[in-house]
């Protein structure tokens, strides 16, 4: 059984998505994992794999700790050209089911490299499970970023 969400919850959900985008685009990246529950699942998965029911994701974090490890590795170990990213998250919808919000939102991420015109780094949809935590905040228990742009323009350095 699922139930519609009220306007206040819709607003709160959209605020969560906006916060997510802001932390990835403008930082601090280290705070991004705090938007997830301790036990969580974050997947960046090509649409082909999703449609074919193949499990491979190009980023797979199975806990908030693994999200933090990803952030630290990106910041401290990965060699990459500097870049600006800009997330656009739209069409956010959700329903209540089993005490959780089951949501979908569309996204696109624009990327600007130092010496190039802006381009679409990734586009697709987020399929989420969002829960209300003890501190009253909404957090992602699960976010599957299913990207339509299966041919990735070179490198995805930061989470999508």
């Amino acid at each position: 059984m699922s139930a519609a969400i009220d306007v206040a919850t819709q607003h709160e959900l959209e605020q969560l998505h906006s916060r997510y985008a802001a932390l990835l685009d403008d930082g601090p990246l280290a705070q991004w994992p705090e938007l997830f529950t301790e036990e969580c699942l974050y997947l960046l998965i090509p649409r082909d794999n999703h449609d074919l029911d193949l499990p491979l994701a190009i980023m797979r974090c199975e806990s908030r700790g693994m999200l933090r490890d990803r952030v630290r590795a990106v910041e401290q170990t990965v060699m990459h050209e500097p870049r600006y990213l800009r997330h656009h998250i739209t069409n956010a919808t959700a329903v209540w089911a089993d005490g959780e919000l089951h949501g979908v939102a569309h996204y696109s991420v624009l990327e600007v490299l130092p010496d190039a015109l802006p381009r679409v780094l990734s586009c697709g949809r987020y399929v989420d499970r969002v829960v209300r935590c003890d501190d009253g905040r909404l957090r992602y228990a699960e976010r599957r970023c299913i990207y339509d742009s299966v041919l990735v323009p070179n490198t995805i350095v930061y989470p999508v």
Partner: protein
Amino acid sequence: MTHNERVWPGDDATRLPYWIYSDPDIYQREMSRIFRGSIWAYAAIEAEIPEPGDFRVTRIGDRSVIVIRDEHGVIRAFVNRCAHRGVKLCRQQRGNTRFFVCPYHQWSYDAQGRLKGVPFIKGVKQMGGMPDDFRREDHGLPTLAVTVRNGVVFVSFHESPPPFPEYLGETNLRYFDRVFDGRKLRLLGYSRQLIPGNWKLMFENIKDPYHASLLHVFLVTFGLFRADQKSQVRMDATGMHALLISQRGEAGKSTDTADISNLREDFTLEDPRLLDPVREYSDDATVVMQTIWPNLIVQQQSNTLALRQLQPRGPESFELHWTFFGYEDDDETMTRRRLRQANLMSSAGLVSADDSEVIKLAQDGTREHPKDAGVLLMGGRDTEDVPHMVTEAAIRAFYVRYREVMEL
């Protein structure tokens, strides 16, 4: 650049002229002499097309190719282009079918690439139609030779490529069979990336253990691949194929890591499940990277297994097409382990991202200086197998062969 200026510096492969990465004439010559030469090119794994009629579209060199299992279970390959007017025949990446029908005039082909149907072949109301001497059997799809080794499908545009074992040579065949040991493979998924660099830069990268212990801070930090580990570089007799073989050592600092300026000694994982390697082969090698001329890298990095296929798209760009797999007899824990370790690989990989970024920079740098040349002297001038990583011998071996095939 005119042909006269295209002179390779020296008579060995210790200098690499930068025009090889961006010259369109060189690229065209590579497509015909290398990718359509007497070679075996990786096309697919059998697990992708298990049932009769299952097909997958891939690219060999710069040409689209359909690989299909026919109604008798035999794997066939033919070019993805209608024999009538050159229209790309199949628009799907994969699927199951008995016939391929061209969207333009509905010429249809069976799973062996034979032309079966030509609408209005006899005309309409005694008007039009094909001439009397038109024979459908003259207009099938050009086929490719196919060979299958333990679940891996290779194809060739060439009429008489050597037998696959002979092509790989004894040592490379042994390591190929180490991963592809006859067990059925389980397809885990794909990852595709378009890298803005020449396709050879990817091969160089995988034949180059010197960079691995310097560029890849993540690998070094966690002891997955380091200059002080027991390791070897091995080639086949021709230099076409190569193996980088290494054993995992300790994480953290050692005397031989002093040259690695950005080693992160203080980096420990909060969730160590990301790296939880277990031994799964009978030898001690924890990393085996195999490059198979002209389009395949077989990757075993701990427990993450992948086939990386190189699909050139012009001199300055290639698709790197990753097929991740395990074995059908893997338990759930092993599959999870492989999926977690895949975090190190492909376009968002904690290790591979370094490579796709550096390949772009190599393209950017060499493009501007086509008449200059790079230096390949690490480990000496020869192309012999060595029991260490501080060498560029496998790149030299590749280019010795390249010069022969390309007559450069």
